[in-house]
């Protein structure tokens, strides 16, 4: 027990501030953790629950999505949690290309997700099929199979870009639906 406690104390808190400003994500840029929590609460009315769906990726994007949970990005501390069922989720975070063998499963997961049913496509393949394109085995972009709110490019996109995509989807959808704080 003592070595564990010592290691925890010596490691300290390594969590970093949330993403820096980016022109194409202007409405969520430069937010501090407290502001992100505020943003989630006002726009969504609660913490954000995400169901990640690998719809055929090479697993590179999954490595970066995993990284969001490491102590540096600490998304759980921001009020963002990955959940085990689409029925518990506000958002699907989908990597691609959508293989034709995952097409049905992805549609079922989408159908099982309650409102607001946000969808963020992650990675070059999720955006446009990437190096795999469209073929007998690949549907290509996630948007070829289910409606997509935000698509994050990159191969794979680094964790901060994925986080920016998640936050962009939350604010964009809330603005579009005209949700008010407290709703």
């Amino acid at each position, binding site marked *: 027990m003592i070595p564990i406690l010592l290691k925890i104390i010596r490691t300290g808190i390594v969590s970093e501030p949330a993403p820096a400003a980016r022109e194409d994500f202007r409405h969520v840029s430069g937010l501090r953790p407290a502001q992100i929590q505020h943003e989630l609460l006002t726009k969504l009315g609660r913490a954000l629950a995400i169901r990640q769906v690998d719809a*055929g990726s090479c697993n590179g994007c999954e490595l970066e999505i995993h990284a969001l949970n490491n102590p540096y990005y600490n998304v759980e501390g921001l009020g963002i949690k990955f959940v085990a069922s689409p029925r518990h989720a506000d958002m699907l975070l989908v990597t691609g290309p959508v293989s034709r063998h995952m097409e049905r499963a992805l549609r079922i997961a989408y159908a099982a997700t309650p409102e607001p049913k946000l969808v963020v496509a992650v990675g070059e393949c999720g955006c446009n099929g990437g190096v795999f394109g469209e073929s007998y085995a*690949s549907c290509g972009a996630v948007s070829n199979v289910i409606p997509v709110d935000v698509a994050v490019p990159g191969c794979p996109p680094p964790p901060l870009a994925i986080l920016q995509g998640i936050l962009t989807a939350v604010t964009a959808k809330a603005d579009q639906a005209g949700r008010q704080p407290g709703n």
Partner: protein
Amino acid sequence: MRIPGLSLVFQPLPGAVPAALARVDNAEWNEAARVVYESGRKLVALWGTDDRDRDGTFGIFAAYAVDTGLAIIALPIAPPPPDAQTSPPDAQASPPDVPCYPALSGMFPVAGRMQRAVYDLLGIQASDAADQRPWLRHGAWPDGVFPLRRDFDATQRFDNPQEDYPFVRVAGDGVHEIPVGPIHAGIIEPGHFRFSIVGEKVLRLEERLGYTHKGIDKRFESFTVADGGRLAGRVSGDTTVAYAWAYAQAAESLMVITPPDRATWLRALMLERERVANHLGDLGALGNDAAFAFGLSQFTRLKEDWLRWAGTALGHRFMMDCIVPGGVTHDVSSENVERLARLAYDVEKELQVLRHIYYEHAGLQDRFITTGRVTAQLALKLGLTGMAARASGQARDLRVAHPAAPYDHLNVKAALRTNGDAAARAAVRFDELFESLRLIRLILHKLPAGDLHTELTHPRPGAIGVGWVEGWRGEVLVALEAGEGGMIRRGHAHDPSWQNWPILEHAAMNNIVPDFPLINKSFNLSYSGQDS
């Protein structure tokens, strides 16, 4: 190359891999398999080709790991004449117009799924194999259509009906099934696991994979040999360096070129960095699956430091596309050489503390020890490979057995544990981490000066080349055949997960269902690499 006990004439292939090719007939195909099997050597990969446009035949290739390197046995298969009367003994197995070759799965169980995949993609059949169920084909294309045949248009689409896969059923008092997937309850790749259980004990696990099949082998046909590394590097993202290197080896063999020394040393730096990144992630996840959140935070913190330095020093967090045919795309500045060496030293110091904590933590060890056990005997029989094999007493590591440059200068010490349980697989990861950190410092210290890239040449149509690299998970193999105009005629990428997935079914047996995530993670196999 010679295989003792075989009179085959092998044609050596140029390049970094000690590989040779022999073209054989049916009897020699069987004889080669028998000799390799009886000498206790392994089948690495099995793939097929469609050469009907050239000489009217199909082809089947088996790559065996023998003492002198990689022995590739190629068997041409003439399609039976349309009026063939001879039906195979098992009438349900194959109609008379299906081209056949003698199965290898009787001697090498690992060949079973590869044979099924070859049939799904090419329509050539292992005639006497017991299991003829589809493997990679679900509903996306019908039986009788074969996407890897050269006259198949890759953009063709078919109806995608729900398939009814005949799982093996277990019957008996109180036995029931738990179907899991394809979407799993975490941030993880898709696949289906069918558990037959009684109470909480797993009687049988049957895997159904192929969900992430992206048609990679077919896709290779639309790339040039010079450019196809981008695709190879995305067969399994967590192994991108090993695939890119194996692809580069195969391409350089076709082009008969040798990359500069500095490039091969930088490749080894990247391969060892990839091994460290994955082992760090896995040790954290193993802790997490045993409810030890401290381990997850500590190891993912170290991994993030590690990835950030790859981004800074090598231009990409996972070093994707950094290895290309002819060399590498990124140099490491002398300043970054020092920083990377210092980081390796710092991580080693932290690992010593963390290893002590893991080894001394009673709760963690209680979950690890005897969980998901694969005995040495089973590992040998079923052809377990790579890191998991070294946890089950199989002393085999390509970096030691057939060290390609620069490993011939590095004197790698392969890890070896014998218990074959989750604890042993965690221990092998720790051992390999320390060895890779030593290798990284050594490579950085001895990094030769010079060019990063050598000029590419035009590959001769019909030339065959292979790459064979000890990735963090096991042996990655890439085979290429050059076509006209510098294009790839046939590209095949083989993931070590082909070998190890079937053994996970055995490892889970007689364990309790709640231990399965831990057992699965202790192997951490690639779905995408297997499904490709």
